[in-house]
């Protein structure tokens, strides 16, 4: 990973982290209603994928999708406005936390239905294949989704048709409250690739360089017309499944242990060791991102709610206006 990309990945991870910490804070202050699913602790996966995709490449995302959106180029202010249901948000405030779509940047949308976004990535990849472009599509999904029928149907077709698609399973150890090993018959979800004759790789999802290697390889394979790849990124979500999760299904020790594997701290240490950034520069980056997120908060809070008269807009296609 060249220095410029390292810095980009770092800033993206920091933006995701601080964006989500802010979202949680706003939720706790009752300024952000509904719920938010936070990916704190998992930032490396989204940030690295985002760094190696171009705007014209596609992603489909999940209920835990703030990180994917930001890594793919979403602006924190418009994203925060969407979380708060404001008119200035990415979907005019209609989508909220779980449905950010940013088509200009290739984000075809988050999807709250478990596994729901997986086949959409296939469709985008098929479109690229039919149009003869070098675009690739990436689908993010969780360990729970890997047990859904749609996972199986999508990977099967992707491999038969050699679609330029990359399946990224963020194995954060829990499908909501359910430990992955209590509902999954194999230790590594990546082995499922064998059933479709595609490569499958287990990656430390908290290690940006391990992610880099796997993602680059998968993108090359997709662009060379060789077909899909399944990447299983082992990671961990520090927060509950959602903001109201009492977390009775895991121990505090387990959470604390994973916090020692923080992807951001790991990269900060690496950058200091390799003299890419000094401690002062790291602190300055924090300050810069803090400011960005404060502005996003301010933008969202000062944005208007959608006009009730427009409630039926965007439900049906009404022709190009």
């Amino acid at each position, binding site marked *: 990973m060249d220095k410029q990309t390292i810095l980009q990945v770092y800033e993206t991870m920091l933006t995701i982290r601080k964006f989500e910490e802010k979202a949680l804070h706003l939720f706790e202050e009752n300024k952000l209603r509904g719920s938010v699913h936070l990916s704190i602790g998992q930032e490396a996966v989204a940030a690295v994928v985002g760094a190696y995709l171009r705007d014209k490449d596609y992603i489909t995302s999940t209920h835990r999708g703030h990180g994917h959106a930001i890594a793919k180029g979403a602006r924190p202010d418009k994203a925060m406005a969407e979380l708060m249901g404001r008119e200035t948000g990415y979907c005019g405030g209609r989508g909220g936390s779980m449905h950010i779509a940013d088509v200009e940047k290739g984000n075809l949308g988050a999807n709250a239905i478990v596994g729901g976004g997986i086949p959409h990535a296939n469709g985008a990849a098929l479109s690229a294949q039919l149009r003869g472009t070098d675009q690739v599509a990436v689908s993010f999904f969780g360990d729970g989704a890997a047990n*859904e*029928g749609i*996972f199986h149907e999508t990977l*099967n077709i992707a491999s038969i048709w050699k679609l330029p698609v990359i399946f990224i399973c963020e194995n954060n150890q829990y499908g909501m409250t359910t430990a992955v090993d209590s509902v999954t*018959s194999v230790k590594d979800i990546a082995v499922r690739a*064998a*059933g479709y004759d595609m490569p499958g790789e287990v990656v430390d999802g908290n290690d940006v360089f391990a992610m880099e290697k796997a993602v680059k390889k998968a993108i090359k394979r997709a662009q060379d017309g060789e077909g899909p790849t399944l990447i299983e990124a082992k990671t961990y979500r520090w927060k509950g499944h959602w903001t109201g999760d009492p977390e009775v299904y895991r121990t505090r020790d387990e959470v604390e242990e994973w916090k020692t594997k923080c992807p951001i701290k790991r990269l900060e240490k690496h950058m200091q060791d390799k003299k890419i950034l000094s401690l002062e520069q790291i602190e300055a980056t924090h300050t810069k991102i803090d400011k960005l997120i404060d502005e996003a908060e301010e933008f969202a809070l000062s944005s208007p709610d959608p006009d009730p008269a427009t409630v039926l807009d965007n439900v049906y296609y009404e022709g190009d206006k």
Partner: protein
Amino acid sequence: MDIAAYDPLNETPYQILDAQGKVILDHWEQSLSDSELIEAFKNMLFVRQFDTMAISYQRQGRMYTYPPNLGQEALSVASGSVLQKTDWMVPSVREMGAWYMKGVSLKELFLYYRGHEIAQRFEQANRIMPITVPIASQIPHAAGVGYGIKFHGEKAVVLTFIGDGGTSEGDFHEALNFAAVWKVPLITVIQNNHYAISLPVHKQTASKTLAAKSLSYGMPGIRVDGNDYIAMHEVLSGSIDYARQGNGPVLIEALTYRRGAHTTSDDPKKYRTQEEEQEWEPKDPVNRLRSFLVHKNIWNPDEEAELIEGYRKEIDTQFLEAEQYPPHSLDDVFAYMFSELPPELEAQKQEYQDYLNATAQEPQK
């Protein structure tokens, strides 16, 4: 045989007999007795008569749509014969031999293909579920039955069937995952007959074998020559032992070929060549087992004509009985889902009854 020792990615199927009915393994001991093999051959012959005659009845307009079994008799008869009375079978649509071996009567089958829902009670047979037409929907049922067996602490197993096309369905994935997580005694037999209606298996999946799907669930998987009765029997017995001992599920891919049409409403000429059909002819399961028995000097093929004559009479008698059965009534359509009909369905039933009454009074044009 140690079923867990096989490599699911191995494209060469487990096989005992070649196309001429000769044993191809160097060290092989016959585990079935001669009389058991003769019995198996007779059953395959019987199933083939049933199949041929069922197609005729359908063509005569005396039966509805029927899925021919021609060429797939070895795997179905073997599957039915390895099960004990207390074991469960969850059918798909094209393994009549297995149902027959489980005790399903021909009369019930004919009734079923004449549209009588009640026939699927399979009253003579123990522990068999109804025939399942929606692709792969039976696999979650089978996993559930397997869980039930485990829950009740029984020593039984459950055996289910699916086609090559069914392996691409989400239900297949969800069911096998849970079967493996819960280590239920489930044996899933994939009848890879090379076509899902008109779609050839190489367009169905990119994996080298369908047995390879087992890798996704961490269960043993094996590809076997499904037209080789003896190989099929060995693999099934090994799988059932494995499952019965509490080791969990097994996936079997039985290679075979649907020599007939998908159903009586299908014309395979539209999607496959005659050359291909001819290629599979010598691999026919009935001929193969017959050759083996003849080589062993324990079967005289000259006796077959008389045997077949007797089979055809028996089959025809049962068909005539089914044909004499009173026509299905309107009640039948509503009868087998709810013990007490919900008001919406009650209203539908009344509406349809009124329609029937009204049309009955209309003069014929």
